[in-house]
C-alpha cells in the first residue's frame, strides 16, 4: 500500500521539480552557463592544473637514496640544492635560458621578412606555395627531422662535403651548441612565421598610405607603423619558440655536445633514476620563467595576436 502511494506521488512531483529547475535556470542565466561550463572546466582543472599541483607538491618531498622510495616529508632540500654554490643546476638553467633567447631572436629575424613578403607582397599563388613550404616540415616527425640534421651536420655530412667540393676547410659543427641553435631555429620557425603573418595581414593598407602621405620613407614606415603593429605577433611567436626550446630535451641529447645539457635532460635523468621529487623541483624553474615571460607578453598585447 505504502509503496503504491509513493509511486503515485513521484510522477507529478518529479515533473514539478523539473519545471522549477528550468524556471530557475531561465531566471538566472549565469547558473545555466555555469552548468554548461563545469564539465569541461573541471576536466581542465583536474587534468592540467591538478597535474601541475601534484608536481609542485612533490617537489618538496625527498627520496631515500638507498631504497629509491619517496619520503613524504616536507623540506626545501631540493630547492636548496638547485641554488647551492658549486652545483651545476644554475649553470644548466642559465644555458637553457640563453639558448632559448638566442633561438627566439634568430627566428624573429628570419620570420619577419618572410611573413611580410607573404602577407603584403606575394601573389595569392606564391603565398599559397610559401604557406605549404612553411607548414610542410611540421608534417614529418620532429625526431626524423632531428636525425636528418644529425647527418647534415656530421663530420662526413652534407655541409662538410659541400665545403670540400668548393675547396673550403671543414666546419666542425656536429655536437656543438651552435649546431643545437641551428636545429632549434629550424624546427620552431613555422611557429614564429604564422603569428607574425597574422599580425601583418591585419594592418590596414590605409595606414601605410597615410604614412607615405605624411612623407615617411619605407624604412621609417617599417619602424614607426609596421613594427609596433606587428609586435604583438612577434611576441606571440616568441612564446612558442621560447617555451618550446626551454622544455626540449631531445635536441640537446642528439645534436648537443659535452656542454649542452638542458633543464629537460636533467629532469629526465632524475626521473629515470626514480628521483621524481628533485625532477619536480627542477621542473619548476622553466615554469617560473615561462610564467614571468607570459606576464610580460600579455602587457605587450601578444594574447590578442594569437
Amino acid at each position, binding site marked *: 500500500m505504502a509503496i503504491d502511494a509513493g509511486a503515485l506521488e513521484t510522477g507529478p512531483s518529479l515533473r514539478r521539480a523539473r519545471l522549477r529547475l528550468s524556471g530557475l535556470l531561465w531566471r538566472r542565466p549565469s547558473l545555466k552557463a555555469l552548468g554548461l561550463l563545469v564539465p569541461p572546466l573541471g576536466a581542465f582543472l583536474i587534468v592540467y592544473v591538478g597535474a601541475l599541483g601534484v608536481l609542485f607538491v612533490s617537489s618538496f618531498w625527498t627520496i631515500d637514496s638507498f*631504497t629509491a*622510495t619517496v619520503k613524504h616529508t616536507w623540506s626545501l632540500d631540493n630547492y636548496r640544492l638547485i641554488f647551492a654554490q658549486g652545483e651545476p643546476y644554475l649553470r644548466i638553467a642559465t644555458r637553457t635560458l640563453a639558448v632559448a633567447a638566442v633561438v627566439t631572436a634568430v627566428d624573429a629575424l628570419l620570420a619577419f621578412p618572410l611573413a611580410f613578403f607573404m602577407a603584403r607582397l606575394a601573389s595569392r599563388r606564391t603565398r599559397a606555395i610559401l604557406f605549404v613550404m612553411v607548414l610542410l616540415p611540421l608534417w614529418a616527425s620532429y625526431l626524423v627531422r632531428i636525425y636528418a640534421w644529425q647527418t647534415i651536420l656530421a663530420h662526413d655530412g652534407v655541409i662538410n662535403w659541400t665545403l670540400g667540393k668548393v675547396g673550403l676547410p671543414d666546419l666542425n659543427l656536429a*655536437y656543438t651548441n651552435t649546431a643545437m641553435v641551428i636545429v632549434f631555429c629550424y624546427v620552431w620557425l613555422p611557429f614564429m612565421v604564422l603569428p607574425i603573418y597574422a599580425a601583418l595581414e591585419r594592418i590596414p593598407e590605409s595606414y601605410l598610405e597615410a604614412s607615405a602621405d605624411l612623407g615617411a620613407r619605407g624604412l621609417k614606415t617599417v619602424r614607426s607603423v609596421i613594427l609596433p603593429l606587428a609586435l604583438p605577433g612577434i611576441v606571440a611567436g616568441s612564446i612558442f619558440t621560447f617555451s618550446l626550446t626551454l622544455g626540449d630535451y631531445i635536441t640537446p641529447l642528439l645534436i*648537443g655536445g659535452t*656542454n649542452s645539457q638542458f633543464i629537460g635532460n636533467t629532469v629526465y635523468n632524475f626521473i629515470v633514476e*626514480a*628521483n621524481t621529487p628533485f625532477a619536480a623541483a627542477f621542473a619548476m624553474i622553466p615554469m617560473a620563467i615561462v610564467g614571468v615571460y607570459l606576464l610580460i607578453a600579455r602587457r605587450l598585447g601578444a594574447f590578442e595576436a594569437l
Partner: protein
Amino acid sequence: MRRIGKRSHVSVVVVVAVTAALAFVASGCGGGGGGGGGPSTTTAIGKGEGSLNVIEWPYYTDKSFAKPFEQKTGCIIHRKDAGTSNQMFALMHQNGGGGGGQYDLVSASGDASLRLIDAGDVQPIDINQIPSWKDFLPQFKSPAHNTVDGKHYGVSVQWGPNTLLYNTKQVNPAPTGWSEIYGSKYKGKLTVPNNPIQIADAALYLMQTKPSLGIKDPYELTKAQLNAATQLLVSQKSLLKRYWNYATDEITSFKNGDVWMGAGWPYQTLQLQADKQPIKEIVPLPTTGWADTWMLAAKAPHPNCAYKWMQYVTMPKVEAQQAIVFGETPVNPLACPYMDKIQKGSCAAYHLNEPASYYSKIKFWKTPIAKCGWNSSSDCMDYNAWQQAWTKITG
C-alpha cells in the same frame, strides 16, 4: 640504463607477437597461484603454477626462446619491462616489497642487485637446483653482486665487458689501454657513455695511475676518492666530442667520422663491423663490465615456474640464443658451439673463449652503497652521490 639503444635491432614483429601473446594470456589463462612455501628448502621442483611474472630488461624473455619454455612447462610469462636499474628496484620494492606478491623474478644488473638483497626484496635460492650452474665461468658462480654470506640470491645469466672502440684508419698505432681516453692525443674525437657508473671506470684508471689515493674497489669510493674521480672526468670532458646516450648514438658518431675512439660494448663493435666500418675494439684489462642476475622475489607467487625458468635460461643453447638476440655474453661457456652455430665466430667475438685469467680482470658493476666492503665502515659514497657527481661533470 644501457638497454634502451639495443631495442632497435629486435624487430617490431617481436613486440607485436609479445603483445599478442600477452593478450591471449590475459583472456585465457588466469589460474595458477597457490601456496608456494619456502622454495629454498625444496628438494625437487614441483609442478609449474601456470604463470610466471617477471620484471625484465626488454627482450630478456624474448619470445624466440621463451615460447618453447612456455609450451614445455605451461608457465606462461607475463612481462613488465624496466628501463633502468632504479626502476627495477622501485618495482620490486613497491606494495610492501619482495615483489609485492605479484612478481616472481627480476633480471637485475649488478648496480641494483645488492640493494635488492639488502632491502630484503629477494630470497636465497637453492643453487643445486640449477643443473647448468656447475658449468658456469667461475666468476659467475658466486659473484659479490648476487651472493652474500654464501647465499645465492639468484642465478647469473649474461654479462658483457666495457670495451674500447677505435677507428683503424684514424687511430694509428692501435690503442693499448684506457689511458687513451684520458689523454689529449685524440682530443675532440672521443666519446664515453652518459652514465654515472662511468665514474667507476675513472676510479679503476686511478687505481693504477694514482695508487696514493688508496682505491681498493672502483665501486666503493670515499668522498675524497669520488672527488678525485670526478676531477679526472671533468678534465676528460674537454677531450670529448660527446657523451653517448644510446648505443645507436655511438654507432652513428663512429660512422659519421665525428668520433674516432670511445668506450662502448661489443654490441656496437659488431654492429659497426657488420656495416663494413673500419672499427675494432680492445678490452684493456683491467676493465669494468656488467653482469645480470635472475633474482627470485621474496614473495614470489610462482616459485616453481621461477625455478624452471632459471634452469631453462642457463642451458647452453638458450644462453647462446639470448646472447645473440641481445648482444651480450653467456655465463655458461658450453654455449660457445651453439653461438657459433647461430652466428659464425660469435663466441670469440663476445669473448666467451678467453682463459680464466681474463675474466678475473673485469670488475663487474655493483651498486655503490654507503657501507664499504673493504674496511667495514660506512663512509663510502652511495649511488645518489654518484649521480649528483655525474651531473656536476656533464651539466
